[in-house]
């Protein structure tokens, strides 16, 4: 079983069409990885699906970087 970090990074690569080597823990989706507002919505939807959880809108807004996503998933598992 892959770690949460590996699974989150994989989803980020798939959703944003970026290379794994470009995705750092500190990478911000919009500023560093070129996501637009729809991309960020889709990314959250994909995370919800992968980790079988529901991320409320007010929490989703705070997930702006790879580490934020990992932290959210880990603390809600």
């Amino acid at each position, binding site marked *: 079983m892959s770690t949460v970090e590996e699974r989150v990074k994989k989803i980020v690569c798939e959703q944003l069409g970026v290379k794994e080597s470009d995705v750092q823990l500190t990478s911000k989706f919009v500023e560093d990885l070129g996501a637009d507002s729809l991309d960020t919505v889709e990314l959250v*939807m994909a995370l919800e699906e992968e980790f079988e959880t529901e991320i409320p809108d007010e929490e989703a807004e705070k997930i702006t970087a790879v580490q934020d996503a990992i932290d959210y998933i880990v603390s809600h598992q």
Partner: protein
Amino acid sequence: MTDKDSDNNVPSRTALVTGASRGIGAAIAAALVDAGVMVIGTATTEAGAAVISTALKSRGGAAAQSSTGMVLDVSDAASLERLTERLQIDKTVINILVNNAGITKDNLLMRMKDEGWDSVIATNLSGVFKLARHFSKGMMKQRWGRIVNISSVVASMGNAGQSNYAASKAGVEGLSRAMAKELGSRNITVNSVAPGFIETDMTADLSADQREAMQNATSLQRLGQPEEVAAIVSFLCSDAAGYITGETIHVNGGLYMG
């Protein structure tokens, strides 16, 4: 480009058509089935859903066999929830949404009750928003989608006694244009079709005098047939219409030309 995206192997097309038991909705559902699209047609009652199932399955072909009627009240969140659960069980993914369900509660402005205003807005406008919000997710994922919203000529023309209906339909056209901008980058088109006076139960209530006045105001001197609206809706749902978005197509026999 993956196989799923290539023209030779397009994802299977499934349409949800609301208000499909009669009138324009029934004609749209039939036209889509004839074009090879699997159709889920909705009605507010079980009896209406059964009528849709019978009508669609009788058209023959693979798309007809898998098409069916289901119950949905677009103004009721719990009803949408139940429909969604059923679609999930059947593993049905909707990539064409035709928002056709609509009601009228005509009255002069000064006599119109809040209920008459609220219910028309809830079904005709808020219903479109709620279904589009829900089903656009799957379309975004597939990077292909079609949303067609049925408006009305009165959105442009106005009509005495229909302030609620006209407002709801004008709202639908604005909503369509905003959605077209928002979803365009995901290859989802959103258009409106605005029928004039069409031979349906909705216009059957008109008096003989009203009918005659209507016909006289129409360049083609007749009411339209539901199939004449369905043809353009079916086209807008096809691949051939892929570069048309944010548009309102008028089908009114020359009653109103902008």
